């Protein structure tokens, strides 16, 4: 018996001696802090149980476009979890740190969760905002971040464009005119979605915040209980925030295995549960069904359906000289 315990202790000591400490950097977009706080904790525990290694995941939230530029400029991200595929495409093209076919490496085009664009208004909806058309009324102050720096803002912009296009008689010209009027009502353009939420919720500026659904629900539940309402417009866009391992960095740092496992974890039942609890729409049908009551019913269109994909949408709308530049009144 004594010998058995000795061997057990020796084995434990040996295992402990082999255990590693691994650090990952997840470069993400603004409103994902709470989601990835929960994911990081759960994954670290799971990985520790599975391998004995201790994983610490650091986060670096910021506007999605800015984050992509930081990675291109040399920020050593092991994984990127950004707001839109275009930003990871930019990393692939400009710095070649991820392969061009990165989106095929994980299920659902490497988007383990989705979201939508909704409105957050003040309690009682004093300006009577119900749909996109209400945002261009005189006297309505709109808060949305700057599409030049924020992935969320691009989804907002495209959601508004698509809905304008779907109006009876809607054309690209009428959609452009609608966006021009809408941005005349924008009081402040923050660089990221979380900043815009701060502007609307904490600084009490504006009548309506165009926001990620997850961010609007979060604000409703945790930042201003009883002070806000979520308004689901008649139509919105299906926002698909993608994730990818940054191969060149993980190879250099020897973290490829754990980085892949980290993103795979998002697709597991446990990961999908965390996704839903943080107000993102899970891909897993069973988990989505369990949380269906938490999400408003929305008629959603995809970026591929209306804009022909991110590359085309970026070129037409957000590249220098695109429609966003064209509709600019002098910036407020």
């Amino acid at each position: 018996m004594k010998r058995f315990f000795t061997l057990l202790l020796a084995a434990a000591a040996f295992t402990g001696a082999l255990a590693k400490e691994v650090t990952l950097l997840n470069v993400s977009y603004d409103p994902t802090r709470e989601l990835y706080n929960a994911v990081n904790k759960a994954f670290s525990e799971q990985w520790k149980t599975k391998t004995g290694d201790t994983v610490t995941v650091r986060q670096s939230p910021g506007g999605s476009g800015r984050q992509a530029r930081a990675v291109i400029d040399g920020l050593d991200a092991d994984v990127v979890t950004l707001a839109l595929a275009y930003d990871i495409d930019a990393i692939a093209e400009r710095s070649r740190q991820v392969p061009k076919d990165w989106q095929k490496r994980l299920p659902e085009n490497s988007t383990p969760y989705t979201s939508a664009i909704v409105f957050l208004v003040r309690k009682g909806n004093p300006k009577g905002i119900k749909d996109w058309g209400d945002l261009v009324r005189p006297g309505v102050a709109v808060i949305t971040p700057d599409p030049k720096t924020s992935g969320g803002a691009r989804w907002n912009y495209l959601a508004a464009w698509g809905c304008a296009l779907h109006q009876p008689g809607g054309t690209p010209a009428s959609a452009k005119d609608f966006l021009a009027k809408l941005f005349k009502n924008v009081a402040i353009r923050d660089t990221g979605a979380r900043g815009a939420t701060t502007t609307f919720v904490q600084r009490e500026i504006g009548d309506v915040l165009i926001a990620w659904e997850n961010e609007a629900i979060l604000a409703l539940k945790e930042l201003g209980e009883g002070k806000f309402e979520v308004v689901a417009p008649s139509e919105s866009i299906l926002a698909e925030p993608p994730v990818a391992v940054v191969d060149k960095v993980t190879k250099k740092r020897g973290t490829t295995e754990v980085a892949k496992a980290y993103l795979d974890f998002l697709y597991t039942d446990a990961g999908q549960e965390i996704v839903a609890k943080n107000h993102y729409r899970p891909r897993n049908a069973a988990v989505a069904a369990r949380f269906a009551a938490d999400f408003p019913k929305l008629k959603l269109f995809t970026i591929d359906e209306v804009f022909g994909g991110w590359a085309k949408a970026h070129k037409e709308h957000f590249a220098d000289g695109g429609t966003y530049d064209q509709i600019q009144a002098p910036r407020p």
Partner: protein
Amino acid sequence: MNIPRWLAAATLSASLASTFTTSADDPSATIAALLKRIGQLEEKVVALENNRSSAASPAPAADAAPVDAARIASLEQQVKVLDRKNELANEAAAEKARTAPVLTAGPGGFQLRSADTNFVIKLRGYAQADARFFPDDNVGGTVNDQFLMRRVRPILEGTLYEKYDFRIMTDFASGITSSAANNGFLQDGYLTARFYPEFQVQAGKFKEPVGLERLQSGANLLFIERAYPTQLVPNRDVGFQVQGDLAAGRLNYQVGAFNGVANGGSGDADTTDDDKDIAARLFATPFKDSDNDWIRGLGFGVAGTIGDQEGNATASNLRTAVSPGQQRLFGYRSGAGTNAATANVVADGRIWRVSPQFYHYIGPFGIIGEFVVSNQQVRRDDGAKSFAKLENTAWQVAASWFLTGEDNSFKAVAPRKPFTIGGEGWGAFEVAARISQLDIDDATFPLYANAASSATSATSWGVGLNWHLDKNIKASLDYEQTDLGGGSSPLLDNGEKAVLTRAQVSF
């Protein structure tokens, strides 16, 4: 009552609109404009609120209160917008400051560095204007009193990708021009890869790690001219070395391979042989972190080189020795090498040098000392060939004291109170004394050097005064007296008395 308010509101709206269009390109200007506007609007809101609450007579119209409330709410929103814009402008300014390159200028030179300090470029340099006087050269000395630019050295140095340092230093001093044959024009040109403090690799042209005083910057010398040991060790050479600090910086090492240069010489290319010199140095400062002032500044070590060198008819790979006044006091025979009268002496074979060395700094007091033995095989060509291994030695001890109390150092010393005209500060005053000796191997004479024109030994003693006006400006006055052994030339007979002065700027 309502009309002026409408006018006020319209005026405010117009002024706000103009504020909104203020360019965000200049965050500080934007912040200032926003702050001013916020203050004005806050005053207006308070005034409106006061007006509303104090308007007792006549009674307001039924719809006046809602109108006022709407106006106030609108103004409050605008104030909040301005507040938030101010906040965002501050954040943007902070972000810009965090990531923007930094340009600095100061006593240490001019510097441009990236916000993360991984990329740095510095413009530095120093220049020395000297005057040399020989009070009794009428006794027979051959050198004139003169002014000259001793060193004019711009320095460009920096860091790339955090770990790679580079340095380029040229010299535009008197008599030095850029040419293929000039080994002095490019003084330093090297890259240092600092992989770890313990392991660094340096490649290019730089000082071989041998002589203590040679390794001291020309801008930080105690005396205007270096002492004799420097003339028996290499100056700058092309090669590479591995270097680093061990034991938390208490032990410093360098080991390198170089083309090989003559004693006191510099080289840009090895044109005379395939052989290379190995140079190494170990220097300890075991008490550098001690609280004990008496031992903290002690450093000691040993350095040496070994290799083979060959000279030829046009490049002997041997150099002359000079006095503190820079007069030639020793040189090997040189000529066509066809007969005894025109014998030519060149390096041919093994050369090794060993140099124990030390310094010790205790408060304002400092002392440095070094000894060098240089052993070199030479060849005499005079139709026939004869060989000899000649062993020359040199040593020096130099001490100094800061009268103004500054802590003495092997490196630059900053005065406690820099000199200012009309101010209290007079800078730092340092007095110094030195004795130095050169001894030429007896076997050198008469075959390899002419005893009539070359000294067999030289002993110099000197005293000096250095006035460090501030960190950048220094004035020096030295008196050096030299006694020379052997020979029959006026210089050798009478020795040398030299008064040397220097005005130096370094940054």
